[in-house]
């Protein structure tokens, strides 16, 4: 009986029967340095301990025979190992692998500038777009303050490393935006159509970009819309010196906006260099809808419709130089719907999109009536697959239908183009220090009935904890400008080959970056003008054309940003050196183009004053003179303007009250009133000239935004007794 009881007890309390094993050893990193604070334990039991300062540990376990030793430590890959506990003291020593993080893993950076909150290591943050002086809360204007881009005050668009404005593509969520800038009069650079508040991330490529994109010889500006609309219900009213905007939003679902701009009152106050017949007036409306579908799916829709009208007195290219009216009436619509989702724990990803662009400009140039109308419909599918944490694959396709109608006086025509593309890209991390991205893009365009295949390659190697070298190379093709294709459908693709080498060092809040590049242009379209050059940018090209143009651009740029050395101060310095020449369009000989400046320097400074709740900023830009056309000169485009310089200031004040949100802002462009000059326009005989200058030597702007929301900081909690 007693024996039996004992027997039962042994069965029932098995825990008390076993002997203890001591497990001892050391946990180190890959190089053998002890890791302090790693958790070493027997899986499924409480037995375990954290390593001491030298990485050593020792603990007892009552586990018998075999056990699983588990090790976990912040910043390292967890490890599990089955062991046989056959001795009273068990020795266990192992190395842990560091987890791949933004800090210890290389990122391919050649030719790319990103502004994003999602990735921790980026040069710019989305907020920078609205807090940079002289940027005017306009995304392309802020990009112009980065190395590689140039400010060309009298022409519209993003000019990158010796490329013309038409060589840069603007893309929203993967879909091409046909007319990203507003339509305006001659000699005035226009703003982009899109509010920076729509986007969560901006990637600006100065070359060597991914196979996902095409039809841009120089650069891609890729914008990603926010995944959620406003996080609140409410309305927002904006007043500024030029107009009024209203928007209403419903939590995470709908944002609806209307805006009206009329620059007439402001132009009556400010001294300016343009004689307006009808100051710019514009109105528009937009809607954003977001709808989650399932757990990981997201459907987004964005439509923007606008109209504008302006008219000014313009001294044109005719002999008498008499001022004549120049009128622009624009209608624009942009609509896109995208759907994105992931499955299999994010290993598969799908992004699809459909969009429609419509743009119509009606120009009145003196007595000539001109009209262009463009429409683009496109569909895009991208599938991503992560094969392991080291290899990922991306593949996709695009189909566009583009129509263009142009009428300039008695000339004109129309065309329809079907454009299709397929692309595949893979990114491989050979080690955490070495990454390679290789891609291939195939395109076909019906209007010139040609196809191309362009390879892209970029790689990066991490030299130490903070620094890395990147390299990017590739072939880039673009269909010639519509006006050329209209008269000559036998043209071939224009081509650019890029080679970029970059070194970047980011430590804490300091970034240093230097990049050098070579760009080789081939098969640029040339007009056979028999040596005659017409500087009229609005002319309709009637001469015979071919692809005999060529050119190059080379140079380097340096960027330094420091948010750390001074409290509440953030500044950056960017410098670009550019050497470029090309023979294209109606150029009679190879020359440095009018939109290129050899030296460009930007100093951007921001300071936050906490006591007043005020953000202040200053931007100083300096650029060497750009070439301009002088018919009396022996050499084509050999005359250069004076250097350009401008100092701009801005200030903003934010006040958040329980259900209100108020922002006041003010800015001054070119405080010193420097008399900048963008070149001269001559009468055809060269006897008379007229300076092309900015619309204002000094420009002031004031505005306020007031948001009324239903529940910003949960007022229910505050009002509760």
């Amino acid at each position, binding site marked *: 009986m007693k024996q*039996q009881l004992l027997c039962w007890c042994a069965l029932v309390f098995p825990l008390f029967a076993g002997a203890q094993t001591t497990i001892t050893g050391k946990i180190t990193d890959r190089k053998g340095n002890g890791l302090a604070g790693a*958790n070493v334990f027997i899986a499924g039991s409480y037995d375990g301990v*954290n390593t001491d300062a030298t990485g050593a540990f020792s603990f007892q376990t009552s586990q018998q025979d075999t056990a699983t030793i588990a090790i976990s430590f912040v910043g390292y890959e967890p490890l599990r190992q089955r062991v046989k506990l056959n001795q009273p003291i068990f020795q266990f020593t192992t190395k842990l692998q560091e987890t791949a993080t933004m800090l210890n893993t290389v990122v391919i950076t050649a030719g790319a500038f990103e502004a994003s909150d999602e990735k921790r290591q980026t040069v710019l943050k989305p*907020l920078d777009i609205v807090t940079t002086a002289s940027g005017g809360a306009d995304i392309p204007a802020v990009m112009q303050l980065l190395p590689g881009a140039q400010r060309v005050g009298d022409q519209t668009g993003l000019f990158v490393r010796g490329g013309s404005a038409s060589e840069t593509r603007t893309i929203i969520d993967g879909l091409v935006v046909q007319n990203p800038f507003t339509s305006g009069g001659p000699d005035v650079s226009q703003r982009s159509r899109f509010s920076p508040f729509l986007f969560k991330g901006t990637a600006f490529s100065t070359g060597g970009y991914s196979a996902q994109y095409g039809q841009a010889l120089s650069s891609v500006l890729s914008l990603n819309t926010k995944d959620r609309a406003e996080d609140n219900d409410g309305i927002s009213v904006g007043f500024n010196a030029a107009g009024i905007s209203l928007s209403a939003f419903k939590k995470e679902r709908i944002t609806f906006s209307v805006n009206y701009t009329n620059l007439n009152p402001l132009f009556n106050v400010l001294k300016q260099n343009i004689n307006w017949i009808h100051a710019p007036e514009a109105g528009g409306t937009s809607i954003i809808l977001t709808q989650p579908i399932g757990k990981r799916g997201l459907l987004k829709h964005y439509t923007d419709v606008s109209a504008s009208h302006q008219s000014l007195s313009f001294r044109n290219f005719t002999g008498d130089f008499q001022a004549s009216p120049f009128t622009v009436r624009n209608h624009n619509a942009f609509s896109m719907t995208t759907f994105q989702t992931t499955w299999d724990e994010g290993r598969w990803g799908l992004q699809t999109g459909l969009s429609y662009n419509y743009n119509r400009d009606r120009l009145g140039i003196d007595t000539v009536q001109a009209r262009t109308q463009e429409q683009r419909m496109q569909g895009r599918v991208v599938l991503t697959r992560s094969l392991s944490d080291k290899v990922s694959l991306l593949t996709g396709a695009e189909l566009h239908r583009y129509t263009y109608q142009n009428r300039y006086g008695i000339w004109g025509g129309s065309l329809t183009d079907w454009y299709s593309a397929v692309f595949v890209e893979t990114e491989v991390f050979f080690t955490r220090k070495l990454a390679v991205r290789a891609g291939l893009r195939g395109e076909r365009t019906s209007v010139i009935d040609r196809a191309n295949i362009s390879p892209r390659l970029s790689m990066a190697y991490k030299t130490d904890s903070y620094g890395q070298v990147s390299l990017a190379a590739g072939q880039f093709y673009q269909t010639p400008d519509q006006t050329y294709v209209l008269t000559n459908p036998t043209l071939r693709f224009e081509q650019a080959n890029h080679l970029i080498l970059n070194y970047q060092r980011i430590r804490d809040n300091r970034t240093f970056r230097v990049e050098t590049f070579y760009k080789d242009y081939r098969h640029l379209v040339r007009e056979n003008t028999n040596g005659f050059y017409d500087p009229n940018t609005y002319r309709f090209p009637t001469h015979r054309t071919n692809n005999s143009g060529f050119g190059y651009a080379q140079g380097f740029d340096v960027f330094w940003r420091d948010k750390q050395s001074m409290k509440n101060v953030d500044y950056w310095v960017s410098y670009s050196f550019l050497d470029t020449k090309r023979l294209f369009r109606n150029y009679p000989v190879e020359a440095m183009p009018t939109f290129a400046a050899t030296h460009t320097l930007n100093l951007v400074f921001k300071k936050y004053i906490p006591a007043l709740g005020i953000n202040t900023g200053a931007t100083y830009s300096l650029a060497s003179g750009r070439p301009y056309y002088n018919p009396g000169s022996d050499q084509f485009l050999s005359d250069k303007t004076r250097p350009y310089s401008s100092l701009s200031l801005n200030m903003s004040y934010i006040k*958040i009250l329980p259900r209100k949100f108020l922002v006041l802002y003010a800015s001054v462009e070119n405080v010193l009133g420097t008399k900048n000059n963008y070149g001269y326009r001559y009468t055809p005989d060269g006897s008379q000239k007229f300076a092309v200058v900015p619309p204002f030597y000094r420009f002031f702007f004031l505005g306020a935004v007031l948001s009324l929301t239903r529940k910003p900081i*949960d007022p229910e909690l505050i009002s509760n007794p």
Partner: protein
Amino acid sequence: MKKTVLFLTLALGIGVNAHAQNEKYTKAMEGAIATVKFMTPTPELQQTAGQFERIANAETAEWLPAYWAAYTYVLLSFKETDAAKKDALLDKAAAFYQNVAQKQPDNDETMVLAAQLASARLAVDPENRWQQYVPEFEAALGKAKAKNAENPRIYTLQGQSLFYTPEQYGGGKTVACPLLKQAAEKFATFKPASTIHPSWGVETNQYLLSQCGK
């Protein structure tokens, strides 16, 4: 007789064993929870986090070890100065939070933990993260309040967040202190479900409230 002995031993034995296991769990948890304070030195707090992780690993049916592990890692992130390391600690906390959220999706303490995690993420880089984490923080607390308006930690977190928000951004003592007072009242009547259920926040609340008069 034999049968009775057999039956009794089995019944008692198993009962004792289960009880012993339960007691071991509670004891281990209580021991660890006692050290979960902001003032605890970092190495010791790391040991505590390690202990919670071990317990969570062994007691896979329980949600409290993972809950406390997540909370301890949040505290460790507040003590860390390097931004990247803060985020690494919070990645770890987030993994434990996921575990808790799976087991207790409808518990107000889970929602409070989500808010605590959001505020810790925000604290790493407030200037650039407020757009994402402020709404997340508020949404989590809003949900918690709808579930159980008597949870004092809701008001402590809300009050603490406002306490450190500059006045022109809608914060400051005038809005924070009434909430902290409300939290103190709720703490006075709040009884955790057991010794190992969430109970933190009293000291923080007292400290902040003591700053209110100044």
